[in-house]
């Protein structure tokens, strides 16, 4: 029976959009459990090649970023309140 394994895989997908060549990059985190799997795939960046120039555009998950900001600010508020109470 296999144990718990964690691996990160990267993938690329090429597509032609108009006169540009696009390479879409993604990252997948796979957690292998003895009797199950969990896979989390997310986009990372897009590489655009057009007329000899290459441009890399990172893909930012604004929803996730906003959620993390809310979590962080709430955590900081609680920590600050506890510290103020101890003084």
């Amino acid at each position, binding site marked *: 029976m296999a144990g718990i394994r964690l691996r990160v895989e990267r993938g690329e997908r090429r597509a032609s959009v108009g006169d540009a060549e696009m390479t879409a990059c993604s990252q997948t985190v796979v957690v292998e459990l003895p009797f199950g*799997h969990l896979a989390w795939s997310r986009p990372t960046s897009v590489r655009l090649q057009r007329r000899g120039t290459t441009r890399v*555009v990172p893909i930012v998950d604004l929803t996730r970023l906003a959620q993390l900001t809310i979590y962080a600010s709430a955590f900081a508020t609680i920590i600050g309140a506890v510290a103020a109470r101890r003084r």
Partner: protein
Amino acid sequence: MKEDLDSLIRSADQADERLLDSMRGMFAAAQPSIVYGEPRPIGGGSIITVSEVVSGGGFGFGRGIGTAPSQMNGATQGPDANAGGGTGGGGGGGSRSRPVAVIIADANGIRVQPVVDVTRIVLTALTVWGMVAGALLRMRRGARG
């Protein structure tokens, strides 16, 4: 009888391995195609959807083998007379996809337009800040008492 039990255990092990292999195939999912959609022509350009995909699944098996001594007409039967066994299993899985951005290609060039899920952000803010407010109120009451 022992051969029957051995073959039962062997077949159950083979079924376990087959299911485990198929499950690995299902979730060996480092496939950019599930993150990036096919280019779709719209107007004078085309768009590609970009999503975050989470998928998971699990399964379990069980088997039991036993014997039950019984008496019939005063004579004790052999221990194998009422022997039996069985196997069973079950599993489940699911996946969730959330749009992250849209790649738009048109006459103006190619650009990545982020997708913001306002409902999700508002729900997160209400839940988290509700919990923080509750915790602060409790702390204040504790300080007074």
